[in-house]
């Protein structure tokens, strides 16, 4: 029987493994300890969000997945199968659950008007209409079909897009594809800084 470290711990905590597999009886010990909190969690394999080492991590999630419920991350740890980190994590990686559920995460679009001293709350529909209107107006105002030499340039010089080195490849690709189609050339991200 092939027992990895994790299946051993889960099995031991659940009391599913008896004398025959391990050679001794875990039941008395089990009676004295609490159940591991990850016992009923679902595992998701993900990657640490901080640096570019790319440590494999496992997120443990609680919840039934029911329509009127929300699942929650209860624990994140290094993935022992990853050839990169072999289950280890640094102080940042080890505390990434605090990043995932930080009380400082925002849930509300905000708009700051010209000269205002503070934000006002706006709904998503208003926010996206505002964004699209500004984007189009600046694109129209700055767009050049031809340069002074009469050559086609089809360029919008009035808008810059920056970021991000924190999004997935797929989102990064879609950002480039969309912004290049919009005619932007001022496009950059954290690689330079």
């Amino acid at each position, binding site marked *: 029987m092939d027992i990895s470290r994790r299946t051993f711990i889960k099995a031991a905590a659940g009391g599913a493994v008896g004398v025959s597999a391990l050679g001794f009886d875990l039941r008395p010990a089990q009676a004295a300890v609490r159940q591991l909190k990850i016992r009923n969690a679902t595992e998701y394999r993900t990657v640490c969000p901080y640096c570019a080492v790319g440590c494999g991590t496992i997120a443990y999630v609680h919840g039934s997945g029911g329509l009127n419920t929300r699942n929650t991350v209860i624990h994140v740890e290094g993935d022992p199968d990853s050839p990169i980190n072999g289950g280890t994590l640094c102080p940042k990686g080890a505390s990434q659950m605090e990043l995932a559920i930080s009380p400082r995460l925002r849930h509300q679009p905000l708009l700051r008007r010209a*000269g205002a001293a503070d934000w006002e709350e706006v709904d998503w529909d208003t926010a996206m209409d505002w964004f699209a209107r500004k984007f189009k107006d600046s694109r129209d105002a700055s767009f050049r079909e031809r340069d002074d030499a009469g050559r086609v340039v089809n*360029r919008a010089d*009035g808008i810059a897009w920056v970021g991000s080195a924190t*999004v997935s490849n*797929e989102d990064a690709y879609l950002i480039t594809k969309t912004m290049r189609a919009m005619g932007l050339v001022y496009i950059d991200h954290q*690689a330079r800084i």
Partner: protein
Amino acid sequence: MASLAATFGRGAMTNHWKDIKNTDVILVMGANPAENHPCGFKWAVEARDDRGAKLLTIDPRFTRTSAVADRHMQIRPGSDIAVLGGLIRYALENDLHHADYVRAHTNATFVVGEEYGFADGLFAGFDEAASNYDKTAWDYERGPDGYVRRDPSLEHPRSVFQLLKQHYDRYTPEVVADIAGCTADEFLQMAEIICSTGRADRVGTIMYAVGWTMHTVGSQIIRTAAILQLLLGNIGRPGGGINALRGHANVQGATDHAIVAGILPGYLKVPTPPQTSLAAHLRDSTPRPLVADTVNYWGNYPKFYVSQMKAWFGEHATPENDFAYHHLAKQDGDATWLTIWDKAREGTLEGFVALGFNPLLAGPDVPRLLDSMSKLKWKVVIDPFMLDSAEFWKAPGMDPAAIDTEVLYLPSSHWIERDGSFTNSGRWAQWKEKAVDPPIGVQPDTWILSELFWRVKELYQAEGGAWNDAIQQLTWDYLNPREPTMVELAKEINGYDRTTGRLLSSFGELADDGTTTSGNWIYTGSYTEAGNQMQRRGTADPTGLGMHHDWAFSWPANRRVLYNRASADAEGRPWDQSRAGIAWNGREWIGDVPDYGRTTPPDAAGAFIMTEEGVARLFSSHLADGPFSEHYEPVESPSPNALHDNVAVNPVIRWYDGVRESLANGDDDYPYACTIYRVVEREHFVTSNVPLLVEAMPDFFVELPEGLAAEKGIPNGSQVRVWSKRGEVQGTAIVTKRIKPLRVNGRVVWTVGIPVHWGFVGITQGSMANLLTPFIGDANTRCPEFKSFLVNVERA
């Protein structure tokens, strides 16, 4: 990365994290991986503990990496080229270079034209008025067959080998010591260990990071290291390489997918106005072979470009309209970070969108950035957390009533709430699973981007406006057009055979006639008919070298070590059988996925398939500031240039308006060198939202050498003020033995260290380090000179 492409043909970390365990000598310079890449650094520790590898650090500070190193040498910020140039000289002078490797796999044998020369700090071809070089002065000499003339004896006085020797001959141990502030003895002890790897049975690696890129000579620092590694025969080999340790989780992937000025996905080029047709763009962008025996893989550029346009514009990209050539903007001049802020300062940039990015704290010269930001009409910040950049109008000292910029903040979802792939520093694209849904009130980046796209597109349909065919015709055939899935996008990136609808398995299948699509050719093979290759989790390691070909997908073509053809000699025999990258068995190459045709015989072509030379470039005309590197001082330096003070700083850097006036000019008001850095408990700025990490590293501080603190009457733990000509910071003094005084050109130089992680919005607030830094960048990448500038210090 510009310098790696200029040397080897590709701009990426050559090897990968686990491969570092295979090395004999690790030089860490311009990086501090024990602090900033701890779980990758453990492979360096493993090499040291298991193989007896030597671990060396060269740095302005005694870092956490130095603490576990065999040897550390302290140098002055900005003196790296002098040290590395000295190592090149030491290897050549003592005949420690790997001669067979150099002859087989580099352009040492190439003969350079008569016009080339170097005198008084300037290479041939310098145009003083334009502040740039006419690079034709660096051309190779051609033979009667039109190809470059080569001299296998390496004795031709204009062979690259002889020119190299001559160029670096000035970097004697004494000159190195004078410029860097180390002693000649310290340097020689380092040199002996580093240059011990110039043999077939030994191999060394270099680990660097932004400590090298963030200088006005950043690209040339890396070039110097690349030249050294080529001379020692360390490129392409397991345990070797020049390993760029990248910062953010997906900074490699975001670069590959070109959220970068001047390039398109897969390192294709953004067209320019003089390229008035597709043919002109392809002609300028497709290199022609310089020798007969080169694969010259970039010769396939037209296939990559046309396939990308087919992915983006589908049936609207036809041979008749040059495959939608004019659907993309033509870029005129530089469009990178500093230029973007210069345009804002000029008032020509109206709108600015920052996604997952905190530009204000990123710097440089925060007072200038605040002024520039205040001139924008509007700004949108998209991030899971509130950022200093979104609240720049209430930064310390700002008057909101005087700032008319409108700002929209959109809360977006986290990495753990999304699937998709991250590409690590070692080019491994790893798929991550979505663990939970975003909280109510939060939207994914994909949704925000799609909504923006559709709403702009619909505004154009409703009311017209500037030319917008490219927007109307952009391929958007996703099942839910308002939120494409990561799988749909990953497949689009990989590409299809348009005739059969089959996902492609290799970029070798791409065509330039419109019959194939590929969003990014270097990722072709990452999502094939066999499934999502980035999601693979096989842990087998048959080579024992940690290549793990069944784990995730490594671009290009699942190759684990770039340039691995150079891990074998001219006949295809591995330099070291115990650490074979690939080996020729008479019929095919075995081992890693070969960086060469699988059945191409070893003598058919040069080892470096991405260069038009077929070999790696010791001499390269691909950078703006010289075919070899040269020591120039930082724009703010505590010392004259000991080699040529009439050309003290890099002569081809771009001086933006008002920058000269913002620099200290060698006066005594700013006598101390300063450098900024990062600590393990923090990552840039996002960790200011993580309570445990803020508790572990709560407050901004200033790292001061003991002697300087004593001289200035600054006790450990007291408040200290540090100012440059641009701004000032204040924080707790950490008086340390980790930075010693250095004797530079006969004068004592003190160095001050400042961490970068604080702003005015986090759980704890602290001075922004970039209040101090200069608005100037590298001659090639325009990466700002964050790592070396001048300050003054006093007790607050």
